[in-house]
């Protein structure tokens, strides 16, 4: 594999099996700092598993991963400090209020020096005053999702932001908010988005990989997206 100084994530021969089923087969991928990468594919193609492996939530069965040149097996907790992950499962605790949830996760993320102040600023900026002090179990799906987005992206973005089906279940307002976060992010933040909806993520991504049966079968640059659309047809 060609070494790349700008590489923030390097995956080499990543394989993941569940029993006798191979979810990922021999994945080689290099992601550069500041890129927006899209992982697309049908249900069961392995894109969420790949995202969870990159987020250090699931261990690969074999292969190696590097983060800024460091082996991801070492110093996992230090590497996790530089990344945030948004999954389809909501991480918020139902019996804590929105404020308590945000303060807890900001405190644990260690990227924010004053979590209480950060939450205050967010409440003002996003007009959350009406429901921030209510338990999350009383939130609608959209409200919970909005808080989840704020959990991973404010007040500062991490070095790597991993998003799994981020646009599903979002209303127009939250969709625009997430788009804005991705487009206007600092140049050093790398975003990896996984979705089965190509059109939702295509215009945001600098490269899109198509996964099929646990393998990367195609990769596309923005100028080549039409090729994919033709393939889909």
């Amino acid at each position, binding site marked *: 594999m060609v070494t790349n100084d700008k590489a923030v994530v390097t995956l080499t021969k990543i394989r993941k099996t569940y029993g006798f089923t191979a979810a990922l087969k021999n994945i080689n991928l290099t992601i550069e700092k500041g890129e927006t990468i899209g992982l697309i594919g049908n249900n069961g193609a392995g894109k969420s598993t790949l995202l969870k492996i990159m987020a250090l939530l*699931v261990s690969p069965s074999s292969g190696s991963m590097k983060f800024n040149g460091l082996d991801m097996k070492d110093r996992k*907790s*230090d*590497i996790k400090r530089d990344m945030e992950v948004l*999954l389809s*499962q*909501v*991480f918020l605790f139902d019996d*804590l209020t929105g404020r308590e949830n945000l303060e807890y996760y900001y405190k644990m993320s260690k990227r924010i020096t004053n979590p209480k102040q950060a939450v205050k600023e967010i409440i003002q900026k996003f007009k959350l005053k009406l429901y921030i002090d209510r338990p999350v179990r009383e939130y609608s799906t959209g409200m919970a999702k909005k808080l989840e987005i704020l959990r991973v992206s404010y007040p500062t973005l991490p070095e790597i932001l991993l998003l799994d089906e981020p646009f599903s279940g979002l209303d127009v307002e939250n969709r625009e908010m997430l788009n804005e976060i991705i487009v206007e992010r600092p140049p050093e933040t790398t975003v990896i988005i996984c979705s089965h909806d190509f059109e939702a993520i295509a215009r945001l991504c600098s490269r899109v990989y198509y996964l099929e049966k646990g393998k990367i079968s195609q990769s596309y640059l923005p100028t080549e997206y039409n090729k994919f659309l033709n393939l889909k047809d």
Partner: protein
Amino acid sequence: MSIIVDTYNMMKKDLVLEFRTKETLFSMGLFSFAAVLIFSSLFKLIENITLEAHYTISTAAMWFIITFTIMLGVNSVFSRETQKNSIYSLLSLPVKPQAIFLAKLLYLLVIVGVVETFAFIVAIIFLNISIQGNLAIFLIVLIFGTIDLAVAGCIVSLLTIYAKSKTLAIPILFFPLIIPSIIIAADATKNLTFYYDPTAAISNALILFLHAVIISVLTLLLVEDLIAE
């Protein structure tokens, strides 16, 4: 120092959630109260019970109640993370896996401690246990025994994070692990309450404490692999 702060923050979050809902505390408290009442009413049904039999049954009843109370708590240790299928909320945190285990263990010890304080008072009244000797030694036996059972429970809870049927998996793993500890704990209690042999009771308590320390250290060494999916 970071591991201590992380442990404290995670434990605090779990305790805030528990004291807000009181789901586990209530079920543990209710079970221990009901069990004490049932055992005390059983004593009234038996006529001409010898003093030794009384103390033996009382001691067994006490550790039976403590064991099952802890088991109710063990079920809740990782439940908040697993009930919504979001164990990833815990794994995504930039903390050492040892901090996760310690936070869960301390959370379990606090809720068990609260319930035991309540159950201890009820048991002293209803089971008519008189501590002939030193109350401090009795408390040492109780605390070390509880710590040992709670450590074993927390390990079992960790081992069954990904189990589909936790209600089945937890007792299967928990009971073989704690049977030696229960025998020693019961022996220590009887040594103190019936035979009044504080030296033997302290030796038993130290064995329990040592067992708790050894299995905790082993778990802390292996927790990273145990918690990974």
